[in-house]
């Protein structure tokens, strides 16, 4: 399975690239922002924390750049991301772990819904070229895909939460309750997550519709589809089992690649809805210039996306025999 080996190689290289970007950034930026941050927090945090952060940002360090680099790589691989200055004395890892499940849940659900719905609409609109669906939806969603996620979020918030009052203004669950496993709590989570998820679905569905429609149009011209028609198979069967089945593969690869974009959009949506995921944490880190927290968030979001990409790659390898033979 050399295809899978190559994908694994890519995974490792990309994680390494993200780690290296994190290492280089504070060292090449003009004006030494890391030092400025430490000066502001001096006296408020323990000397050990200062020492650890100096190592991370390469300040007052007599070690060679290579020693620093390997020390940093070692720390990160052991899961030691440093201390958050915003949430002192909590380790950065803990802060991120609180936010990550919320983001993964929100983005995961919204992306799966958008993918399923978009693929279906794209398929139908290609099947009936020039029909109602084909005439209205693709152009409409091109326009919507040009909307900034967060602004659409603000719009949705204005209409459904502020004006109509159907949904809560934000956060992931009622502030009066705490996290527990009950139907009531699950209901709250769904209730609070509805508007952010809706925003992500509306903005990301257009891409799926368009890609699916365009590949489906090419696939419908294939000889095996003509053959299926000639055999007198039912249209539904031809649409799903012959054309749709083959047209979905580019969408599936696109699914993985788009996750980075979706997460980027979701970060801003979280900020609009005060949703307690990593995006919201990232905003707090930006406002308090907590670089250690910011960089860890960047790293972990990258790894989360890469794991999803890898999963989609394996799925493609399983579904499409050509990827296996190509090796």
């Amino acid at each position, binding site marked *: 399975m050399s295809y899978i080996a*190559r994908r694994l190689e*890519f995974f490792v*290289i*990309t994680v390494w*690239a*993200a780690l290296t*970007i994190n290492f280089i*950034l504070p060292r090449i*930026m*003009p*004006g030494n*922002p890391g030092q400025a941050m430490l000066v502001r927090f001096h006296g408020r945090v323990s000397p050990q924390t200062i020492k650890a952060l100096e190592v991370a940002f390469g300040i007052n360090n007599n070690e060679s750049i290579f020693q620093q680099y390997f020390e940093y790589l070692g720390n990160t691989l052991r899961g030691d991301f440093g201390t958050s200055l915003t949430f002192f004395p909590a380790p950065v890892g803990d802060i991120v772990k609180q936010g990550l499940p919320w983001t993964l849940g929100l983005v995961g659900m919204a992306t799966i819904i958008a993918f399923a719905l978009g693929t279906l609409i794209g398929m139908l609109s290609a099947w009936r*070229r*020039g029909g109602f669906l*084909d*005439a*209205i939806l*693709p*152009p409409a969603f*091109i*326009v919507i*895909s*040009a*909307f*900034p*996620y*967060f*602004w659409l979020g*603000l*719009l949705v918030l*204005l209409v459904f939460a*502020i004006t109509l009052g159907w949904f809560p203004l934000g956060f992931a669950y009622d502030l009066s309750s705490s996290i527990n496993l009950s139907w009531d709590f699950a209901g709250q989570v769904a209730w609070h997550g509805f508007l952010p998820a809706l925003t992500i679905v509306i903005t990301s569905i257009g891409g799926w519709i*368009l*890609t699916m429609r*365009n590949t489906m*149009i*090419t696939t419908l011209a294939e000889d095996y589809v003509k053959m299926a028609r000639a055999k007198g198979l039912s249209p539904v069967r031809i649409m799903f089992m012959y054309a749709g089945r083959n047209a979905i593969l*580019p969408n599936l690869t*696109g699914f993985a*690649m788009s*996750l*980075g*974009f979706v*997460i*980027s959009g979701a*970060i*801003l949506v979280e*900020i*609009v809805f005060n949703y307690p995921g990593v995006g919201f944490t*990232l905003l707090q880190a*930006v*406002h308090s*210039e907590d*670089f250690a927290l*910011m960089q860890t968030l*960047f790293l972990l*979001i*990258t790894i989360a996306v890469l794991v999803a*990409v890898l999963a989609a790659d394996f799925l493609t390898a399983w579904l499409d025999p050509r990827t296996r033979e*190509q090796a």
Partner: protein
Amino acid sequence: MAIRILTDQAPVQTPMVSKRSGIAGTLASALLSNRKALAGAAVLAAFTLIAIFAPVISPYDPHALQFEPILGPSRAHLLGTTGNGQDIFSQLMWSTRESLLLAVVAGIMATVIAVVVGVSAAYLGGLWDHVLNLVTDVFLVIPTLPLMIVVAAYAASGGVAVLIAVIVITGWSYGARQLRSQALSLRNREFLEAARVRGERSLYIILFEVLPNMTSLIVAIFLGAALYAVLAAAGLQFIGLGDTNALSWGTMLYWAQANGALLAGSPLWVLAPGICIALLGAAFALLNYAFDEIANPALRPVRRKRWS
């Protein structure tokens, strides 16, 4: 093939360049006959005019805190005033400059990098292709917004230049991937073979034989990159990166959000800049979609129907 192409979303097709009317003529006539392209071009032209004539159109100094805060729309203030007592309409007109400039400059720069990386990967082949391709894939998959936020936060005092830089760094990879695919498919065509037999240098072949045949894809990539720049800049400015005292639509949204504009009852403060961002983005997206249809005739609408 050394590495499997991760994504092939854009149909890779050789553009049909007719010999008689030339590339520019073909593009222009195709654009004019496409309704989506016309709509996009019209919006873009309108924003360009607004950006040029902003000082003439806007009735007040956009920075002046001289009015009652949170006024509703009236004849004196078409879109009302901000929470700080500035005229929203004037701010909107002036903001067009930075937003449009950023989109075009970042779009062009990202396209240039995409062309250089994509075409040289395909043309040089071998190890170069492998390395350039890997770099492209890495940049393609890394989530751009967190990266942009980290870089922009480090360079907090940089203003527009920093925004353009981070957008270009994160925005070139998608185009490079598409250009490489198309350049690969062109590589073994007869006309390139002929040029090689004539003894032309590589640089000549790339500049005068390969690139002209990729014009429509390059234009499409510029439009995509410009759309990305519009949205990315709006997002970064919205969370307060870049220069928050400069006038741009994203910054207007930042101040609106910081002042709780929605709850304070001045939705226009949020709606107006957002609609402008969406319109500019939609203009680029529509043009891009139209180019897709022009480059790939199979996607053109079968029956002429009104869709708008």
